[in-house]
């Protein structure tokens, strides 16, 4: 069978620099899914964009051919004129991008943007195209296609926007769909549903797909063919099944080992509850008021946190897991005193086992300053949490500067020491953050958090913005430092697999409530709550034997009204958190 797309000896460089894609070859058969796998900087995105020739202006295709054997006959995409190329884009080959939030124009209605593909390639008017677009909207799972047609992107959630993007890519029934990290920016449950949808659509229409991803779990669930790229070269290529069962190339093996997954565990032994708590949150609630649209309508109340009780023992890690909007970050901000909770909430902090607890939200000025030294934070995005205009040395010594600690040379020595602690060289102090990679920057953030010798660190999704292999390194680093310095972590994440490794206790949050809480072993061995089950089921694992169970995902990730009777939030009566076995609490009716 002739391949639908064949990429032959493709080399691409930027300007006069060395090639970033070197001698890449692969073929995509009709109806097949090929996964391009690699870390950032591997050249996978440049390769897939070269197919449609949407490359940055300075990129040059040095050599190679890209041949498309679509419904319009054989075409050499590298030799085509720009004008002819436009008839391929969106029609024979279409593309979905990583960030659904920003890939749609904020000022045009979804219907307009999607049906535009048909005006361009089928010469239809807006009213003629509408019927086809509405059918496509229904197909990609919009409950009310008419309404979606009239909506603006900002009225939709991330998952819905990605569905709209998929509809846009599918509406002209292309032969090939290129998806560039289509689910990386989505919550794990939404990711599972979007992947499921893409697979289903592919089965129905028989189109081929190139899936660009860094996640081997996604690959295992979607692909028939795999191409592993590293530094612009193909490391390993072949059918998915044998490759995933026994990766031959050491780099692929390395990727495999780094891929986080939820361990299969046996029943854990119950542990006695800890007595020495560094942080205790009691009945913490936070309600935001949203301004009403008109003065005579009541204000809308948003319950970001509802009666959250959490206890963090000294030297341990407590993880809060949930999707965006679940209230996990609000809870962490309240714990740090960065946000005022509703009255009746209590947060107690004990600096050491023997010291008196202080209420975080009733501190005086001196206590607050002392508390800020004890509690530090590591942020999600290492690219924006370091000032690009400050040298590493200044960024690192600034906390000591603010608290008036040490002399200049002492601060400097401490910064150098901390850099070594996180695995960087002390001669990097003079550099600016742009000289560091994402993983190195996150190390810098950790080092900065350590400068004040804190006892408690809040980690807000510290690895979500990083590649899997780097994620693995940062997690090890965090573990080492915790054990070395006797730190306690409050760890926020949307990813159960990350948490599985580092946490001593996991609290799963949904809509401001803790729905299930247990040590990770107990949680993964015997998840009780439908939402926890959905989170676990939605986690893509690099194991073709364990595909995502979409049914479980759909059951748990939906509206709380769709949960079983035992777990349903009926009206204003919420089920309470009940200890079903020692140390394992579930929010359910008895």
């Amino acid at each position, binding site marked *: 069978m002739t391949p639908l797309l064949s990429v032959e000896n493709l080399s691409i460089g930027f300007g006069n620099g060395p090639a970033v894609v070197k001698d890449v070859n692969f073929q995509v058969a009709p109806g097949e899914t090929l996964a391009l796998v690699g870390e950032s900087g591997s050249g996978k995105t440049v390769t897939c964009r070269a197919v449609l020739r949407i490359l940055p202006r300075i990129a040059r295709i040095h050599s190679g051919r890209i041949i498309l054997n679509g419904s319009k006959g054989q075409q050499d995409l590298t030799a085509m004129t720009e004008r002819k190329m436009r008839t391929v884009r969106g029609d024979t080959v279409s*593309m979905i991008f990583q960030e659904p939030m920003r890939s749609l124009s904020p000022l045009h209605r979804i219907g307009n943007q999607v049906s535009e593909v048909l005006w361009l*390639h089928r010469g239809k008017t807006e009213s003629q195209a509408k019927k086809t677009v509405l059918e496509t909207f229904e197909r990609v799972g919009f409950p009310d296609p008419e309404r979606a047609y009239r909506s603006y992107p900002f*009225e939709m959630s991330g998952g819905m926007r990605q569905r709209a993007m998929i509809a846009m890519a599918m509406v002209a029934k292309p032969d090939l769909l290129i998806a560039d990290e289509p689910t990386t920016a989505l919550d794990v449950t939404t990711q599972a549903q979007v992947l499921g949808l893409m697979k289903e659509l592919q089965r129905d229409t028989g189109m081929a797909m190139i899936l660009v991803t860094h996640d081997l779990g996604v690959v295992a669930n979607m692909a028939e063919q795999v191409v592993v790229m590293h530094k612009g070269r193909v490391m390993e290529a072949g059918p998915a099944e044998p490759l995933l069962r026994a990766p031959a190339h050491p780099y692929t093996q390395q990727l495999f080992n780094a891929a986080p997954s939820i361990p299969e565990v046996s029943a854990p032994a119950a542990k006695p509850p800890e007595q020495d708590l560094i942080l205790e949150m009691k009945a913490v609630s936070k309600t935001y008021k949203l301004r009403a649209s008109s003065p005579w309508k009541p204000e809308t109340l948003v319950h970001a946190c509802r009666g959250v009780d959490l206890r963090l023992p000294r030297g341990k890690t407590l993880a809060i897991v949930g999707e965006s909007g679940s209230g996990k970050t609000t809870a962490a901000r309240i714990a740090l005193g960065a946000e005022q909770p509703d009255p009746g909430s209590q947060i107690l902090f004990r600096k050491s086992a023997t010291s008196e607890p202080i209420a975080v939200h009733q501190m005086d000025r001196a206590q607050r300053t002392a508390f800020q030294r004890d509690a530090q934070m590591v942020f999600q995005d290492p690219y924006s949490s370091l000032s690009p205009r400050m040298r590493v040395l200044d960024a690192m010594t600034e906390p000591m500067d603010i608290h008036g600690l040490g002399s200049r040379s002492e601060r400097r020595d401490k910064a150098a020491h901390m850099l070594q602690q996180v695995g960087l060289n002390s001669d990097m102090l003079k550099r600016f953050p742009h000289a560091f990679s994402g993983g190195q920057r996150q190390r810098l953030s950790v080092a900065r958090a350590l400068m004040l010798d804190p006892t408690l660190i809040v980690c807000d999704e510290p690895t979500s913005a990083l590649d899997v292999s780097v994620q693995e390194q940062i997690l090890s680093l965090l573990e080492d430092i915790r054990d070395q310095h006797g730190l306690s972590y409050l760890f926020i994440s949307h990813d159960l697999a990350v948490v599985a490794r580092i946490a001593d206790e996991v609290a799963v949050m949904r809509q401001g409530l803790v729905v299930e809480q247990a040590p990770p072993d107990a949680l993964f061995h015997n998840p009780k709550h439908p939402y926890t089950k959905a989170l676990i089921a939605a986690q893509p694992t690099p194991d073709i034997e364990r595909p995502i169970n979409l049914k479980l995902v759909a059951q748990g990730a939906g509206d709380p009204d769709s949960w079983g009777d035992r777990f349903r939030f009926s009206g204003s009566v919420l089920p309470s958190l009940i200890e079903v076995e020692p140390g394992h609490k579930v929010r359910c009716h008895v």
Partner: protein
Amino acid sequence: MDILRYVIYRIGTMLLTLLVVSVLVFIIINLPPGDYLSNQIAELRASGQSAGVAKAEFLRTEYALDRPLWEQYMIWVGFMPGPHGFSGLIQGNFGWSFEFDQPVSEIVGDSLWLTVLVNMAAIVFVYALALPLGVMAAARARSWVDYTSAFIGYLGLATPNFLLALILYYYGRKYLDIPIGGLMDPAFEGQPLSWEKVKSVLLHLIVPTIVIGTAGASAMMQRLRANMLDELGKPYVETAIAKGMAPSRMLTKYPLRVAFNPFVADIGNLLPSMVSGSVLVSVVMGLQTIGPTLLTALKTQDQFLSAFVLMFVALLTLIGTMISDILLVMLDPRIRYEGKKA
């Protein structure tokens, strides 16, 4: 329906603002000690012309200048009956100019609409020039189109307006036979509107429009270019290209629509800066706009005249911002829906 409600709301706030502005204008005008008439009376007394003094004293009572300041204000605006009953701004009586010894409405009558005309022409010029050039400079960033338009733009910004006026008049006269000075041929002044008169006005408008508009156009072009460049890097532009859109259509439909917002928001600032900024140019070019009148009125403490002109400029500003606000609401659904989403 929502937009209609917003327009009504905006007009309401505009009227309120205008009221506050009138108080401020009145206070500022009365800040310097004395007024036109007391200055004149002092001068007449010194030179011993008692007849003139009597007339000035008469005018003082006639225009209620002998009353407390707040009463003067109320009479001026028309909230309180003056010596001749209710006769203030809201009744359409703009007051008396002592300097020119004429009602204010007669002095400003002609120059009012000429001011509006010149400024409208300049604004149309600014937008007509800045829009295509800004988009082109962004789409072809760091190419000769970009550099050339930037060069001309900076030249326009850096050249003093009156110098530009003189240069354009000289060469316009020499090569294109463009008339110098004024806004119409003197023969048409005071004549009823005719086709010939309109033609003369249009011909006289060419140079002032360019002179007043160039600096604004080059500043706006650079702003639009910067906005467009920001937008061109956004993922939705890539999406549009991946759809197979032609570059020109893609540019105008997507990034331009987003980059347009600050462009529209500028209308409000453009109107007043053109009135006050064009005073010097008007003097040099002999344009009968309101700018030079304002200057004389302020110098001589001709309070009703200057107050009226200041109110007029304020009104232009407010109308300008109102127009840009309403346009923004119509153009940008994010602004339109902001209240609803909550």
